[in-house]
């Protein structure tokens, strides 16, 4: 058990971080390269002002018409995404690991809050799952990969929650937790989770076309 732990938290973690960082850089660079090669005109339409205007209207809850039309989805998705990003970075026990390995630290979330946020992420995933099964318009466009992606995202939080509470067998679950986290990191550049990388670009482009050429709002 100990050696497996050593392996997943050592070399495998390295691999995961390298694949994540390298994959993200590669994806974004490849996207921009394709634009440069095939649709260079896009650059000439890009505008910082309109891009940011559009991005802000879509990352602020209820600032877009559609987010007001789906209030529950809007609240869930914002809570989900914020927790999803903040918890792994600002969890005390994660910061301790960074401190031990690299001697760097930063402020941590109170453990109680992080615990609540973890539960919120898990519940959000259940909500997304239910949407996929219940709502016809979501069901129609759902493929197996959508369930896999949801599972990949939920797994680190479920296992992390279990391990944090030190329930029976938690040292084994801890290994699963580390593995799940690594899988999620790697999945970001290599699955539809890459919307994390691409969303700013698609939004900025649509914002620039609407703001600069069409003189209309796109939110």
């Amino acid at each position, binding site marked *: 058990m100990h050696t497996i732990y050593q392996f997943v938290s050592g070399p495998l973690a390295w691999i995961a971080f390298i694949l994540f960082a390298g994959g993200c850089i590669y994806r974004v660079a490849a*996207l*921009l390269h*394709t*634009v440069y*090669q*095939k*649709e260079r*005109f*896009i650059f*000439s*339409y890009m505008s910082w002002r309109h891009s940011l205007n*559009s991005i802000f209207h*879509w990352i602020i809850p209820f600032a*877009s*018409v*559609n*987010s007001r*039309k*789906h209030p529950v*989805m809007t609240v869930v998705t914002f809570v989900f995404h914020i927790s999803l990003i903040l918890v792994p970075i600002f969890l005390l026990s994660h910061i301790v690991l960074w401190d031990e390995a690299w001697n760097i630290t930063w402020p941590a979330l109170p453990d109680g809050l992080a615990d609540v946020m973890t539960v919120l992420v898990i519940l959000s995933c259940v909500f997304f799952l239910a*949407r996929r099964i219940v*709502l*016809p*318009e*979501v*069901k*129609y*466009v*759902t*493929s*197996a990969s*959508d369930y896999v992606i949801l599972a990949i995202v939920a797994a680190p939080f479920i296992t992390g929650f279990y391990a944090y509470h030190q329930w029976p067998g938690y040292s084994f679950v801890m290994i699963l937790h580390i593995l799940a986290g690594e899988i999620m990191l790697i999945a970001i550049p290599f699955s*539809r989770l*890459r*919307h994390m990388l*691409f*969303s700013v*670009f*698609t*939004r900025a*482009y*649509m*914002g620039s076309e*609407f703001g600069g*050429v*069409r*003189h*209309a*709002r*796109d*939110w």
Partner: protein
Amino acid sequence: MGDPAVQNDAAVEAKVVDEGIDRGVEALTPERIESVINQVFEKETGARLQAYVETCVHCGLCSEACHFYLSNDKDPKFSPVGKVKQTIWEMVKRKGRVDADFIRNAVEVAHTQCNLCKRCAMYCPFGIDIAYLMLVVRRICHKLGVTPLYIQDTVNSHSVTMNQMWVKEDEWIDTLQWQEEEGRDEIPDLRIPVEKEGADIMYSVIAPEPKFQAGLIYQAAVLMNVAGMNWTMPATPGWDNSDMAMYTGDNEIMARVKRSHFETARRLRVNKIVMGECGHAFRSIYDMGNRQLGWKMPPIPVQHAIDFYDELLREGKIRIARKFEKSVTLHDPCNIVRGRGLHEKSRSVVRAMCDNFIEMHPNREHNYCCAAGGGVINCGPPYKQKRMAGNRVKAEQLAATKAEVLIAPCHNCHSGLEDIIHHYKLDMEVKFILDILYECMEKPE
């Protein structure tokens, strides 16, 4: 798991007979389909297509943007992303190895169940441009020789005559002279200056105007004369600003048509092109045709009628003699509202003319499309029932205003909304802004 295509009324009723599609599909071979799809994917598309396919999280949030979806009892096949699933996703996933039946469905989806109105781009959290994806499908179908017959005929007309309606050169000039003569009964020194080099404005219209609605040219001539504009209309091909090739994915013909339009304006050395109340023509000149020719923005300033009327009213060149009495509501055409933000200007023109203006909801950028645009009405009678069924929400939206007159400042919207009003038995009259402006403006005694 992905659902099989759910049957709905429209789908059951319709195994539409369309010779353009039927014959095209018969001639397809698997090799040809595969090679054309991959050629378009590799040579004609790039990061946009890729990012749109890879970024979509299949969340379905774009669904309620689409009038087809809302009107067909929320049948997911009609949701924007549902249309992408039936077309682009499969083509990408199967690397172009799809069969003729697939193409048959794809051409119907892209040509007759999407108006390219881009409302969904405002509802997708990522700004995924599904209208663009549907245009890619149409491009593929065009290259496969599978395009609905009626709209293909208009493209053939563009190609042969540089106008959409097979209007011959002498017919065109005759029509202008005829309208000039008619106009002189009202304003004795009225002119429709043809081929006047160095004029300030080239006025351009779509070919259905000389063909069926010459009265609109008459009204425009009165407006130009009363306002004292230095204007002209060309006598040569290039006078028509319409463009159905843009909607069939025939980009080469789109480029020829737009080049001839711009070159005509250049030859006449005008300062700007002012165009009649048409939306798709504006999109072609302002957004798509110019790009196909390599111009970021149009090489000559273009002004849509709404903008032009607004300017004339603001500068006092046209004055309102008496206000229009009936209650009016205003439709916001996609191509000039989501496409050019003219919604406040159209309102200021309407308010100047009409005392009793009732907003429909939703409005401005969020207005529902007329379901005629994007070339859908031009696919002709075989699809009319589907078009009517596909825009029940528009009928409800119109009925709720209880207005007597519906102002639709776009030719496609105008015809499409007339159909809707007739089909749903609404008691409403459709008018262009110019109809009312002409009626209400001050004219010399």
